[in-house]
């Protein structure tokens, strides 16, 4: 049998149809397709793919199980290394991780590792896997985790499996962090995927306390001295929205992507007024930024009924930081890309509502500190884009609430927590940190990797302390 150089394609909703609904875009492999795709794996002696995985999944092993139609075996293999495979199979940037190193990628397309991960995880969720609760020792130690996003959830899963009594404190009313408030339903279904994964963690024995704002309701010190937690893992993510600092940014109709997506994903404003949180979408929407969050905001705008949705980005196509798949999906759905355009002001009417975004055209100069070519304004090229909504998606910084109430824990000049890359140890004994709060905004899987490493380090710390 000759080896196909192409991945098996995954069925998707038609772009014209899906641009009007919030159902999931990609529909997943069937059993037959999954097995056929698994057969493309060469099961290399030295599997290069594994070095691209931040949580070290034994990729050839789980793919072999799929090939053998041992689907339960496949999910167990995945779960050994990754507590949220249904999530990662959907939102991991596989093209720059595992799939990038796949030997097949040298000649054609890599094995569709992400799609196979998703297949195995979904199949297991559909079957409703039984979760075995942890039997805790009478003297099990307590670990507190602040934040229930990818880093917090992955650390919680690992620590629980090691026998620690884990409590996650979440500031919002729903657990999941960015998986719940940030990534849209059409990329990552909330009830079907995120909630089930979180419920499984609870069944395992992890306690999740929602509505618990660290730094306000309690401090890190109080957790350790008054509430008996032996260690604390801080995984509060990148929750503070950046604005452009240009005139008109406080006009009605200007949203941070965080607010826009939170209203839609967490508060379900797309089902207003049955869900009571409103959202306002105009006919013409400009989303400023070129990352995954910008793509999410743009595609959400379209689904809320906007007619024209623009991505306004100051660099060019090649520099877009979003995943190729997201850009491709956005284009298919009709998102209009206004590249090499930089906003200089938001213009409003006399009632304080947005009426246009003034931009200047840019050209690319020499590479800057980020290695990308520096965008430079083209003099005299200003123009106005008629829009009634502007969504600012130019990045998120660290929320200072926990840092500012935790004396003895160092932060860097950007406000991120200083933590050891391998262990997550901060400058404060017993306190660990990982994910976006340490690295700045990155990916779900990197945060999960950090959570996993921190769990190992916390275990070592607590064992040494006890000894």
């Amino acid at each position, binding site marked *: 049998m000759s080896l196909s150089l192409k991945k098996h394609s995954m069925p998707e909703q038609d772009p014209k149809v899906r641009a009007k609904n919030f159902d999931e875009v990609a529909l997943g492999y069937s059993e037959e397709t999954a097995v056929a795709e698994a057969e493309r794996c060469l099961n290399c002696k030295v599997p290069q793919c594994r070095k691209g995985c931040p949580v070290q999944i034994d990729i050839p092993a789980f793919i072999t199980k799929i090939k053998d139609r041992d689907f339960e075996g496949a999910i167990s293999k995945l779960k050994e290394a990754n507590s949220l495979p249904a999530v990662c199979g959907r939102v991991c940037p596989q093209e720059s991780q595992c799939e990038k190193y796949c030997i097949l990628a040298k000649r054609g397309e890599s094995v569709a590792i992400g799609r196979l991960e998703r297949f195995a995880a979904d199949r297991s969720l559909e079957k409703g896997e039984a979760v075995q609760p942890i039997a805790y020792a009478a003297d099990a130690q307590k670990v507190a985790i602040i934040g229930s996003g990818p880093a917090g959830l992955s650390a919680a899963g690992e620590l629980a499996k090691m026998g620690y009594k884990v409590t996650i404190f979440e500031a919002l009313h729903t657990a999941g962090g960015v998986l719940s408030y940030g990534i849209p339903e059409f990329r990552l279904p909330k009830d079907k995927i995120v909630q089930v994964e979180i419920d499984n963690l609870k069944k395992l024995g992890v306690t999740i306390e929602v509505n618990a704002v660290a730094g306000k309701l309690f401090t890190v010190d109080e957790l350790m001295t008054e509430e008996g937690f032996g260690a604390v893992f801080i995984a509060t993510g990148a929750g503070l929205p950046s604005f452009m600092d240009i005139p008109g940014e406080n006009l009605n109709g200007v949203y*941070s992507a965080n607010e826009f997506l*939170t*209203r839609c994903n967490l508060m379900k404003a797309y089902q207003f007024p049955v869900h009571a949180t409103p959202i306002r979408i105009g006919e013409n929407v400009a989303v400023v930024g070129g990352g995954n969050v910008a793509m999410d905001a743009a595609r959400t705008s379209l689904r809320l009924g906007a007619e024209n949705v623009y991505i306004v980005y100051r660099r060019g196509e090649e520099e877009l930081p979003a995943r190729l798949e997201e850009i491709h999906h956005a284009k298919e759905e009709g998102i209009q890309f206004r590249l090499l355009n930089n906003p200089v002001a938001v213009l409003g009417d006399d009632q304080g509502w947005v009426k246009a975004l003034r931009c200047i055209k840019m050209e690319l100069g020499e590479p800057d500190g980020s290695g990308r070519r520096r965008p430079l304004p083209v003099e005299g090229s200003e123009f106005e884009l008629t829009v009634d909504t502007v969504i600012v998606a130019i990045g998120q910084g660290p929320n200072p*609430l926990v840092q500012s109430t935790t004396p003895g824990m160092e932060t860097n000049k950007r406000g991120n927590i200083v933590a050891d890359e391998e262990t997550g140890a901060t400058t404060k004994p017993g306190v660990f940190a990982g994910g976006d709060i340490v690295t700045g905004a990155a990916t779900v899987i990197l945060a999960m990797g950090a959570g996993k490493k921190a769990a190992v380090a916390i275990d070592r710390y607590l064992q040494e302390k006890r000894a």
Partner: protein
Amino acid sequence: MFKILSKKILSPGVLFFELEAPRIAKKAEPGQFVIVRVDETGERVPLTIADFDRERGTITIIFQEMGASTKQLGALSEGEAILDLVGPLGTKSHIEPDMGTIVCIGGGIGVAPVYPIARGMKQQGNKVISILGAKSKDILIFEDEMKAVSDEVLVTTDDGSYGIKGFVTTALQQIIDRGEKIAEVIAIGPVVMMRSVAEATRPYNISTIVSLNPIMVDGTGMCGGCRVQVGDDTKFACVDGPEFDGHKVDFKGLMARQRMYRDQESSADEHYCRCQTLGLKKEEDCECHSH
């Protein structure tokens, strides 16, 4: 779930809830707020903490039934519970000993959140003069409570049915005119009222604190929906406030932002009223446009 231990109707449409929330009560300070979400489909509504009792483990909220969410909240009875209660949020009021004479101004239901501040100021040995404003006598709240923590209380009503006829600024001007040396004015109430107070004190250079309650979602600095221009800076009312220097707040911008969801608010209100009239459970049975 957070149980409603006691419910009182303070005036038509203005409700008082004492909620069981020991952890929040333990940490709450004057000036801070909570976010309330009634049920699974509810929105997150910020409400200032009107009082707290660390020993009883309770906090008090006072709110006016304005739109769908506050009406739904108000429809709950004693013994029932609200789904989510988050707090204490925001920074606490700046209260110190020997600041001097403090004028605490509350307009409408703004009297409620000014109460713990007045009490804190009094406990720290400051002279507290309070001004309570209401449209008319029958909707004035918290007069006795405020009297108990103030050296002097002035009441103003728009229609003259009680106290001084006029606005809170009328009474404030009288205090200024009689030569009272004022260390600080704290004003909580409708945005127009707070703006008027700030304008009244500006010529005398009297430090003036206002407490803002703009539109917000999470209340922890995550969405930026509550941003407000204060001097040259954009501030997030939820984490940088809710109290700000009244002389620096861009009230015009703040008022414009309060109108952001006016259309949606009336449609939510219609939806709520219709579902209530028909006795429908909110989600399943209603046939409103967006289902």
